[in-house]
């Protein structure tokens, strides 16, 4: 019963997203797809921050590398296989994550945050200030990755409905993979490292190797998100690697509830929803132009009032109700 209650929200939202295409228009589907990609990105950072206890402020770099690797694979108008480009994007992000992890994990806490930021800035400026991919303007993809069956293309992934299905599928796959990982030996060891690294070393765990593995894995999943984003948008630009991007995803998982996978996904949805809400001129009139102000205030209020994030809200309400019941009894 308890277990059923716990997974009920996930089942309900799955059903909801499953029937969405029946009545949603292209704009709504695109917005939802964008959110799914953001949720994959947030999940990848949750693996690092929530599960392993490593706060990185440079996670955008890996998304950018995945996107740029996809653009490089699809430079000409020859379409390439979706799977091949996806693997290349993840490999590129992982290849950069490995040395970054090896170097940045030599320091801890605030220093770790700063070193990850520095490595992300490096990526940003390489794309921004060199001609590798047309500098600050970014570059267009020559073709979309192709999903084909027996040689014949199945559908165009840049169109709204196919991309909606693909991004939702990838989001579910990533979520299931990370949920499995959390209950596996590897996930237990990461939790142990987050809670008490000293004891883990004393027990016989090479904790640095574990942290490097988690960092690379998180980088690869961020690269996957970058690949999806580039495929849909049809272009890439250096802003993907900017620290705004890395900061936003960090705030996203804190706002949603750090330490739980559902928190990362909820945070991504809350971000997109709040942005759309406050940007709506029908609701806020002229104030909609300054939506960031209300957006920021909402985030601050959320973080102050909900220490366990949005996903901690039901627990908090239940506790409040119980305390009130006690007072009245």
């Amino acid at each position, binding site marked *: 019963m308890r277990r059923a209650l716990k997974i009920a929200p996930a089942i309900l939202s799955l059903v909801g997203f499953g029937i969405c295409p029946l009545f949603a228009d292209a704009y709504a589907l695109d917005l939802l797809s964008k959110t799914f990609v953001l949720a994959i990105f947030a999940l990848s950072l949750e693996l690092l921050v929530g599960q392993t206890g490593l706060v990185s402020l440079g996670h955008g770099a890996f998304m950018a590398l995945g996107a740029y690797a996809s653009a490089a694979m699809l430079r000409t108008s020859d379409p390439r296989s979706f799977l091949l480009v996806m693997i290349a994007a993840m490999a590129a992000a992982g290849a950069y994550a490995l040395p970054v992890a090896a170097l940045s994990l030599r320091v801890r806490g605030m220093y770790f945050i700063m070193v990850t930021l520095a490595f992300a800035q490096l990526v940003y400026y390489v794309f921004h200030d060199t001609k590798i991919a047309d500098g600050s303007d970014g570059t267009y993809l020559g073709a979309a990755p192709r999903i084909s069956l027996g040689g014949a293309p199945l559908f165009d992934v840049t169109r709204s409905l196919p991309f909606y299905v693909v991004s939702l599928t990838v989001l579910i796959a990533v979520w299931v993979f990370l949920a499995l990982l959390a209950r*596996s030996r590897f996930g237990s060891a990461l939790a142990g490292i987050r809670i008490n690294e000293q004891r883990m070393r004393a027990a016989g765990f090479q904790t640095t190797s*574990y942290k490097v593995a988690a960092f690379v894995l998180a980088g690869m999943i961020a690269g996957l998100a970058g690949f999806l984003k580039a495929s849909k948008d049809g272009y890439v630009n250096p802003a993907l690697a900017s620290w705004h991007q890395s900061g936003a995803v960090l705030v996203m998982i804190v706002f949603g509830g750090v330490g739980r996978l559902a928190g990362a996904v909820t945070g991504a949805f809350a971000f997109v929803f709040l942005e759309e809400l406050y940007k709506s001129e029908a609701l806020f009139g002229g104030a909609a132009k300054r939506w960031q102000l209300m957006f920021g205030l909402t985030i601050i209020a959320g973080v102050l009032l909900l220490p366990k994030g949005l996903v901690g809200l039901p627990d908090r309400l239940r506790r409040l109700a119980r305390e009130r019941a006690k007072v009245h009894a």
Partner: protein
Amino acid sequence: MPRTLLRASGLTRRFGGVVALDDVSLDLREGEVHAVIGTNGAGKSTLINVLSGEISASAGSVELLGYDVTRLSQPSRALAGLGRSYQRSTIFPELTAMENCRLAAQAALQRPWAFWSAARACAFTAARAWRALERVGLRDEMDVLAGQLSHGKKRQLEIALCLSTAPQVLLLDEPMAGMGAEETERMLSLLEELKADHAVLLVEHDVDAVFRIADRVTVMVDGAAIASDVPERVRANPEVQRAYLGHGQEP
């Protein structure tokens, strides 16, 4: 002659100009409790840190089960059979007592790539964890969050964590610190039991307890071992009496 499981030779550790550990040599044998006593700052904890590899030695060597492990990292030494406990309980407060021990036991069977199999479903680690909890007397508390255990029980869990990795050499840093009389008795009988198939290094403040249980006693002063012998001879050693036991001037 019982087997020597751990041998330290000429261990020295300097922090800048301070010599925290000064040319200490000692043997730990199977079936023995080897106690290390000394005043605060005498270098007892540094000795355990250097032996376990938590900090490196400036000079000297450590041999574990006949192999030179001086250059091995702490996790490697742990996997080779060295277990340590901490003076301040170093546990996983957010996890249950059982999960604490299961996690420590997992070190022997890490298989990090097996992401599809649940860590808790592993019979091997669960059995080891359960045995460790049973041995220290925490069987009834296995589902209690470690952070909610009483101080004495946290100390017991500290030992259980150490036993979960099935080490042959135990380095125990003041396991009885802050324990009540009853808990101390319990810990002493546990040590008595453990020494049959382990080599135990016991750092302890409670001198009475030490002389009751130890087979050998090393006395440390200012980072150096000034005596290392069976308890009776250490007690009779005039240098030890002058430096530590504090009743050498009796008429």
